C-alpha cells in the first residue's frame, strides 16, 4: 500500500513538511502544493531529508501552477513538476492521500 502525501505549508515557517518526511517510506510519494512549493527550492530547510528520501526511491513532486505563481523556477535535483491532471493521476495511483497542512 502506498500513500500520496500533500504538503501545503512552507517549511521556512512551519513543520508540516518535516513531520511528513518522518513518515514517508516504501512506495509513497510527496506532492508539494501552495506554499508547500517553497519546500522544493534549493534553499529548502528540508533539503537533506528530501534528498535522502529521493535517493531511497521516494518520488517528490511540485505542483507547477503554484510554483510558477510564486516565481519559483529552480528546484532540488530530482524533484519533478506536475500539473493538476498529474495531481489527479497521483491520487489514483496511490491507495490513499494524507494532507499535511
Amino acid at each position, binding site marked *: 500500500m502506498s500513500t500520496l502525501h500533500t504538503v*501545503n505549508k512552507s517549511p521556512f515557517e512551519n513543520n508540516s513538511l518535516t513531520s511528513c518526511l518522518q513518515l514517508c517510506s516504501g512506495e509513497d510519494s510527496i506532492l508539494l*502544493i*501552495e*506554499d508547500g512549493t517553497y519546500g522544493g527550492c534549493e534553499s529548502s530547510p528540508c533539503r537533506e531529508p528530501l534528498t535522502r528520501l529521493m535517493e531511497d526511491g521516494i518520488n517528490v513532486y511540485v505542483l507547477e*501552477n*503554484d510554483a510558477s505563481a510564486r516565481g519559483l523556477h529552480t528546484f532540488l535535483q530530482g524533484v519533478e513538476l506536475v*500539473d*493538476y*491532471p498529474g*495531481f*489527479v*493521476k497521483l*491520487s*489514483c495511483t496511490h491507495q*490513499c*492521500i494524507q*494532507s*499535511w*497542512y
Partner: protein
Amino acid sequence: MPMKFTVVILGAPEGSLSSRSALEFCHALLEQNHQIERLFFYADGVHNASSLIAPPQDEADLPASWSQLINEYKLDAVVCIAAALKRGILDHNEQTRYEKNAANLGACFSLSGLGQLIAASSVSDRTITFGS
C-alpha cells in the same frame, strides 16, 4: 479506470488558497472522467457556500466558480450544518429555527450532517482533503 472521489474542502474562499486548489483539482478530476461522489464543505470551507460574497473585479470569484462546477456536473455539494451555523451560513430552515434576519446559503449547496461525509467516503475509492 474511473474512480469515485470524496473531496473535503476546509478553507474559505478568501484568506486561504486551498479552496482554489480543491476547485482546480475537481476540474481535472472530472475532465479525466472520474466521479465526485460528494463535495463536503467543512470548517472554514463552509464560507464557499455563501451567497453574499462580492469579490473585487480583479480577483477570482471562488463561490461563483464552485456553483458553476456544481451545476455543470450536477454534483452533490454538502455543507456541514454544525460548522455552518457557527460561521453564520444559514438556509431558510435554519434562519427560521434560530430566528435570524436572513439566509445566505447558495442555491446549489445543501446543509447536512457529518454522516454525509462518512457515507460518501465509505463508498469512494479515494477521500482527499484540502486543508486550510
